């Protein structure tokens, strides 16, 4: 019974982290699916989302507003607006001019952008990590009084529900809306979509905006969950999310969701049963193994090399 409780606790923690990884991973996978480049600066956009949310929360608290749903919604909206604008601007400045060149060039441009954004926030807000107020606390406890207690906090429930809403909205958007259909068309064949009258530049911008907005949601959620933000925290999260995207099959949106969840669970099992310090090692090793034995990921389509 004890072991089961411990296991379930790790599972819950893993799913919590994993669902936010999935949110970030969608940004990577959508961009890769359409223009075939790794948006290295995506982790930084997520970090900026977290910072904006924190600024909005502190600002509202200073104004004396204490009604929790209002604070959360305003913070979420602010974070999404700023991050989406950032995503749009990054694509416009750093990626559009180099699109279609040799593979390495957009990638190096993206690394430069990532360094730039990290230091932009670093200069504006300082390098120290800043505490994120725990707005949602408390939760349910299971298990007997003296043994191991499994807890499911309200924060974790909020993360699950928000992620679920976002994922459903995204799926509906992609499958039903006109822009969503255009997105799918562009990811299948950019040139052909262009010929058929789709404004591909607009669609590419739209994927960056959508990815950034979802990353901002993840920024707010993970910021609250971890309780602090610093300018570097986008880097590792971005790497993890990329791993998740590759794990699920890059270019596939359901794959990103699945990959995020698997990665999150694998990580929390490692820190629960082995050691917390090596959880990053596990996720990178997982990435290497997946790429070696199944480069298309779990749900990805095999890529045919054309001559």
């Amino acid at each position, binding site marked *: 019974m004890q072991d089961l409780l411990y296991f379930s606790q790790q599972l819950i923690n893993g799913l919590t982290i994993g669902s936010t990884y999935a949110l970030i991973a969608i940004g990577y996978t959508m961009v890769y699916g359409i223009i075939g*480049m*790794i948006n290295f600066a995506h982790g930084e956009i997520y970090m*900026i989302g977290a*910072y*904006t949310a*924190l*600024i909005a929360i*502190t*600002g509202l608290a*200073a104004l004396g507003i204490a009604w929790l749903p209002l604070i959360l919604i305003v913070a979420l909206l602010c974070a999404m607006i*700023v991050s989406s*604008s*950032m995503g*749009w*601007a990054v694509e416009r*400045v*750093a990626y559009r001019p*180099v699109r279609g060149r*040799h*593979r*390495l*060039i*957009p*990638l*190096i*441009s993206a*690394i*430069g952008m*990532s*360094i*730039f*954004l990290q*230091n*932009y*926030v*670093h*200069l*504006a*807000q*300082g390098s*120290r990590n*800043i*505490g994120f*107020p725990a707005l949602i606390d408390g939760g349910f406890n299971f298990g007997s009084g003296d043994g191991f207690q499994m807890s499911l906090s309200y924060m974790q429930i909020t993360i699950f529900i928000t992620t679920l809403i976002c994922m459903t909205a995204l799926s509906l958007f992609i499958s039903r809306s006109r822009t969503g259909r255009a997105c799918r068309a562009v990811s299948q064949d950019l040139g052909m979509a262009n010929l058929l009258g789709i404004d591909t530049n607009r669609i590419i911008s739209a994927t960056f905006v959508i990815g950034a907005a979802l990353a901002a949601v993840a920024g707010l959620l993970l910021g609250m969950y971890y309780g602090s933000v610093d300018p570097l925290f986008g880097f590792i999260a971005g*790497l993890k999310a*990329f791993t998740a995207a*590759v794990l699920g099959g890059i270019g596939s949106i359901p794959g990103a969701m699945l990959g995020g969840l698997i990665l999150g669970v694998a990580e929390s099992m490692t820190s629960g049963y082995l050691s917390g*310090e*090596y959880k*990053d*090692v596990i996720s*990178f*090793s997982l*990435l*290497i193994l997946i*790429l*070696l034995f199944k*480069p298309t990921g779990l749900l990805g389509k095999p890529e045919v*090399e054309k*001559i």
Partner: protein
Amino acid sequence: MAANNFRHALFCSIITLIISYPIIGFNLEAQGINVTLTGADASTVVMVLLAAVIVFLFQLFRDQIMGTLRSLPHPLPQSSKEPMAENRRAKIESWVLTGIVVLALFWPFFVSRGAVDLATLVLIYIMLALGLNVVVGLAGLLDLGYVAFYAVGAYTFALLSQYLGISFWLALPIGALLAALFGLVLGFPVLRLRGDYLAIVTLGFGEIIRILLNNWTTLTGGPNGIGGIPDPTLFGMEFGRRVKEEGNTSFHETFGIAYSGEHKVIFLYLIALVLAVFTALVIRRFMRMPVGRAWEALREDEIAARSLGLSRTAVKLSAFTIGAFFAGFAGTVFASKQGFISPESFVFLESAIILAIVVLGGMGSQIGVVLAAIAVTILPELAREFSEYRMLIFGAAMVLMMVWRPQGLMPMRRIHIELKRQE
């Protein structure tokens, strides 16, 4: 068109405001557990507004501005001139290079200790960049975890000297060979991957090495690092004031001159210089050898190269291993120069800087890479007052370079014939 332009310009300036005002205009201050928000001072707000206005004006008159820029005469008129005859150019180049090396040999005796120290660092970066140039510039494999091999070299020397008392000169080849072995072992499975997957896997490998170094406290000392790494000796002569090891003599006593701390710094500089020249020469040889041609052929067109019978794995693996070997070299020198190493020195940013040097110099071009290494290492030292903006400018420069001049400052030139278009 004008109305369209105006709308676009307005949109761009609003975006500029949105992405800059919330982050720059409000400062979060942590006081204990409480976080407070303060508005930035008036000048910052004015700057942000000014930036938005500039973006607005630029986007509004974009066509005119770009038109004027294009009609300006080319800043470098020479670039349109006939290039020099190839053999004459090669002759001049080799004379100039020899001159520079001779100058570099005597230069440290006339300048301050700090300058020599910095020059040693520059030489280490030159070695690293030349090594990475083989992997990225010549073979076209994007390696984002290059710093891992550098770390292997540095830690090999540190650990060997700590546990076995091995000296610098023995550790130098061991460190380089061990780094090359790491390159071989990592490269074997991952080199089948496509370009950007390879980039991520190497990045992951770099992080794994760093995390291991950080957490394997019993062996590596964890975040505290390893100190007390011995200095190199000259035929058993030590450069310290007192001899540390039995059987050794000290440099200043042997030659009967007064002790000076500068001797050691200059000696290290000279070692680094010799090794850097050695690296450059060896790689230059490789470039002319069949394997070097194969690297480039594979970079240009993998399918064509394979159809001509090149083994993809063997060619890529050789580039990867040779690159790692020189990183191990540089790592050993670095450990000996610092006397203390910790995982802090081997973060991803270091890989990015080395990559930026290669890209900035012009992928594949040795002279370009050397110049870029000097520029990237020395410029931040000269602009100390801008030091906090250093990485910001660095990131922006990387992006701008890719947009405007992706071939680098001095792109590699090869003997080639251009077919004249029939008029």
